[in-house]
């Protein structure tokens, strides 16, 4: 870790913080068996108001013809000798082939709004910014899990993220759609697979190296979110373990980052204390003391509803936001259970999650 930060620190001194737009943008699309969704992703990239100079699809050992789909659409396909085992591995594999000042990482199941790259690129005009990410909304909002995630995203991207960005410390530059300075990425060794949340790891490493990270709400992307409990479980396991792993890995540096340290501490507190309250204390109190304790599961839904419905109204999706609200308490219980389990496994029983499971 120290070596990485040291390298990053030297890099900061060495790199001439170039002005944007001098050599274009390369898009890296890591893909493992994504034949069904990849064409939409590439189409949305080809139809950008600011088109990328090159699109590199990393066909990470797919067996469903992912590489053929990409080749048919005329983009560059790179295939590692064997499956790299993670999204971070596939993205880092492509990094030596990037010849532009900026690169974008985008998931193979994510489509972009037509002006997303142009909007995101604006953030990079500041030479101190090393990464920026956009606004994330689920592409399909049908199942209870997709609806719950939709509410979570509306709440986070309309309320939490703009506040975090105002204080110049967004918690994370989302892995599904972010732009980076290529040279900075190279100097910190690309995306690391030492944790299950490579985007959080990268964001916190950039902060420790003195770089800024931005959130650009106007740059909208639409990933496919888990539509069933199985895929949701895989994704949440990866995110929960990734969060705990990153806290363990970066806590020294996070302590020195104003605001970020408080968000992280509060997240940990709410995950552990409030999670235990929700999952263990409330059922016991409901059974033994007063059934009204059941209200604890939904008591804050009207509060959540304020930014969610306002954002839904702004995006002309008010009815969808309203219909999705009841799914929020459901997905929250699952989130809590996943986080508490990850906390227990990572910190108490020391069973670190090392295998990258595709959530979607």
């Amino acid at each position: 870790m120290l070596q990485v930060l040291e390298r990053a620190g030297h890099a900061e001194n060495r790199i001439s913080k170039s002005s944007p737009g001098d050599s274009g943008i390369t898009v890296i699309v890591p893909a493992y068996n994504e034949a069904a969704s990849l064409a939409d992703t590439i189409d949305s990239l080809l139809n950008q108001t600011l088109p990328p100079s090159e699109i590199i699809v990393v066909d990470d050992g797919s067996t469903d013809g992912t590489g053929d789909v990409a080749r048919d659409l005329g983009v560059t396909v790179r295939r590692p000798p064997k499956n790299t085992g993670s999204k971070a591995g596939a993205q880092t594999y492509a990094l030596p082939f990037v010849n532009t000042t900026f690169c974008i990482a985008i998931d193979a199941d994510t489509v972009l709004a037509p002006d997303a790259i142009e909007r995101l690129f604006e953030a990079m005009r500041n030479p101190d910014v090393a990464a920026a990410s956009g606004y994330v909304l689920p592409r399909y909002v049908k199942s209870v899990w997709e609806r719950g995630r939709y509410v979570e995203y509306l709440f986070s991207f309309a309320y939490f993220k703009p506040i975090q960005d105002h204080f110049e410390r967004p918690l994370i530059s989302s892995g599904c759609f972010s732009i980076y300075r290529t040279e900075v990425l190279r100097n910190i060794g690309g995306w690391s697979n030492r944790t299950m949340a490579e985007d959080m790891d990268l964001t916190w490493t950039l902060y420790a190296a003195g770089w800024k990270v931005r959130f650009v709400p106007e740059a909208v992307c639409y990933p496919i979110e888990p539509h069933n409990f199985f895929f949701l479980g895989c994704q949440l396991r990866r995110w929960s373990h990734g969060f705990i792993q990153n806290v363990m890995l970066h806590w020294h540096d996070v302590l020195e980052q104003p605001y970020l340290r408080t968000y992280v501490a509060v997240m940990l507190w709410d995950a552990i204390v409030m999670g235990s309250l929700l999952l263990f204390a409330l059922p016991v109190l409901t059974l033994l003391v007063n059934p009204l304790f059941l209200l604890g599961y939904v008591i804050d839904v009207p509060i959540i509803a304020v930014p969610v419905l306002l954002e839904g109204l702004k995006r002309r999706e008010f009815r969808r936001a309203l219909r999705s609200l009841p799914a929020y308490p459901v997905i929250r219980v699952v989130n809590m259970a996943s986080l508490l389990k990850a906390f227990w496994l990572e910190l108490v029983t020391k069973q670190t999650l090392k295998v990258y499971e595709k959530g979607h």
Partner: protein
Amino acid sequence: MSAGLPAAGLGGALYLLLVVWMLLREFSRTTKDLSPERSQWPLIKKMVFVSLAMIVVIIVERLIISNVLKLVVLHIPGLAKFTMPPSTSFVVLMAAMPFVLLLLLIACLHCLRLSRRLSKAHSRFAWREASEAILSGR
């Protein structure tokens, strides 16, 4: 994934306080630097509006719940033992609790930072002492 309870946990208290802090910082910045292109007021106004709306919803929700419970007891008196209204001091205590806990948590973070810095400084001092002792042949 939102870790924790964003509105009811410490997260809710933290982001409400951050909005207040945004407001104060921007007031201070505006008095020092009047350049309108750097103004953050549109975002701050939106966040203040959303936060105030959330506070209003909390108050309205409390009123609705207590009135509904009163109605329920009126029709089903047997439920009265489950619907005892909490005292005002209890309500105030519960409302203040997240903010008190949050301040304690922030204080703990700063204590941790301070202790790390002290232990770093101490280890550097001990290392320097040891190297000086070796060099002087003690």
